[in-house]
């Protein structure tokens, strides 16, 4: 095919046909106005189009249009062996890929019946890297949120600290964002020599910085004035919409799958679940959501500390330890259906597998993205809000379009 041929014939009707608005020009009242925010707009955190119906400054209705980043994850998964799906899983929630891998691998291991038989060192490393990634995710969430509402410094500070984590994970796996590190039945590699010490010194460095974040941003009067009482999400609405993760906890429910299900080695670790109490406004407002994320960073640091204790103490590296020793030669689960769920930084990530028992390719693999359900509450949350608060509300949901559209 000649490369100079113009394949795409531009036609303004294409956009009308492929993504029609819910409110065409003729259908709205004379005092109403439709504003399209996105798909290319920095405050939508990706390619999300929001069709906002306004009456003066007030949002009357909000219609999210998704799918601009749809990469057919589920169709791909129906054509690939289980171990080859892991890189695709990374690309769903690309700012917390380790956590997604952890959940996926846990599901497949449960299907082939090797869950709980792996060496403790592997489990500790998995939790260590997942919590490091959780920190990186929350840094992005809080940092970009501050930038959304006009504070640039916290964003740069958070990116600086996130860079340390990304470099450590790059040292570990060779990739900065999309790791393919946690494998079914093991890991890609053991920790590189010296990683534990480096990680320990990073945590020592990080704790004062988290304090700093609290003073600089979370308890900053300007930030509190801007976010407290804005975007109030009542607990009953949150549960009704299937909202999970820090958003649900900000609404005042102490619910964390790491405690509820107690998967992997989380029951052996000590940590608390911070919840929103409405200290500055009402429980479940934008401030609470960010407060919960910032408070979770301290708990993740605590978990990492305990993992490092174990990895340098009872489960320290030995000369003959091979993290690939338990990798199954062939991954062919017997015919079954399984729904596995795990606590991702953004909420409950679930995978629904259907295996037919005859092949090493899943018959059906559905991903329940936490961002997908968390985003679905947006239109309820925004109704009646001022358009100036809309950016503050959208940012506080902390979704990644890669996981919404899959």
């Amino acid at each position, binding site marked *: 095919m000649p490369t100079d041929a113009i394949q795409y014939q531009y036609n303004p009707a294409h956009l009308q046909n492929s993504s029609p608005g819910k409110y065409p020009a003729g259908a709205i009242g004379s005092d109403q106005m439709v504003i399209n925010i996105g798909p290319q707009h920095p405050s939508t955190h990706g390619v999300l189009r929001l069709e906002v119906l306004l009456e003066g400054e007030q949002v009357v209705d909000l219609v999210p249009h998704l*799918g601009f980043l749809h990469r057919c994850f589920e169709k791909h998964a129906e054509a690939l062996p289980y171990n080859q799906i892991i890189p695709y899983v990374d690309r769903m929630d690309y700012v917390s890929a380790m956590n997604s891998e952890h959940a996926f691998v846990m599901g497949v291991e449960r299907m082939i019946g090797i869950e709980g038989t792996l060496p403790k060192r592997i489990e500790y490393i998995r939790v260590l890297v997942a919590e490091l990634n959780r920190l990186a995710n929350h840094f992005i969430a809080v940092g970009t949120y501050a930038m959304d509402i006009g504070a640039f410094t916290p964003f740069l500070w958070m990116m600086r600290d996130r860079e340390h984590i990304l470099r450590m994970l790059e040292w570990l796996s060779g990739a900065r964002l999309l790791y393919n590190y946690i494998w079914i039945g093991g890991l890609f590699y053991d920790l590189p020599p010296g990683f534990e010490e480096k990680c320990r010194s990073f945590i020592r460095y990080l704790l004062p910085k988290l304090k700093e974040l609290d003073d600089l941003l979370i308890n900053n009067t300007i930030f509190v004035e801007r976010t407290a009482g804005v975007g109030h999400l009542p607990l009953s609405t949150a549960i009704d919409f*299937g909202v999970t993760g820090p958003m649900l906890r900000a609404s005042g429910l102490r619910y964390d799958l790491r405690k509820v299900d107690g998967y992997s080695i989380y029951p052996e670790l000590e940590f608390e679940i911070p919840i929103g109490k409405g200290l500055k406004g009402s429980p479940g407002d934008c401030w609470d959501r960010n407060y919960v994320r910032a408070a979770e960073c301290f708990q993740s640091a605590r978990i990492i500390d305990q993992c490092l204790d174990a990895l340098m103490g009872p489960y320290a590296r030995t000369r003959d330890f091979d993290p690939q020793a338990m990798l199954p030669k062939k991954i062919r689960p017997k015919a079954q259906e399984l729904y596995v769920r795990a606590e991702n930084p953004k909420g409950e990530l679930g995978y629904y597998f259907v295996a037919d028992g005859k092949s090493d390719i899943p018959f059906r693999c559905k991903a329940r993205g936490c961002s997908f359900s968390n985003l679905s509450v947006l239109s309820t949350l925004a109704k009646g809000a001022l358009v100036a608060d809309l950016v503050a509300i959208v940012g506080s949901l902390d979704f990644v379009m890669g996981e919404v559209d899959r």
Partner: protein
Amino acid sequence: MTGAEIKLRLEELCKVQGLLEDVPDTNPFTLKVPKEHYLAVCQALKHSEGLYFDQLACLSGVDLGPESGLMEVVVHLSSIPYAHQLALKVRLARPADPQEETEAIPSLSGIWRAADWHEREAYDLLGIRFENHPDLRRILLPADWIGFPLRKDYREQEQYHGIKVIY
């Protein structure tokens, strides 16, 4: 509450003795529900004391392939206060024509709002119709896309807006 206890309780609440069927080799415990009792069973699951499934975690459509002539909708529920989980499964006939939508099954969006987007996704990718859904449109694919990609016999359209789809 174990799966068997939930089943007993449901049979008594909805008067569907002998109509609920266990599905073997599933995690969490899965019940197959006849289509006509689907909505009543879901209502009982959400509102009855002792069951109280307040969270709809996931709703997925599954195509069992052209030979079987069947499709499934699988609903994963969990109860936050009681910490138990359950899956429901409904079977419906599968149209032989890949472009054709299925018969309609009741929408759960009146019971759990979370079902709204999940059902739109099942409609978009598998062509399952939901009755009384507030806003059943495609969600991930463009509105003028032809066909339902997660059907096992799906064939891509030749062209989309003048762009070749199949290479």
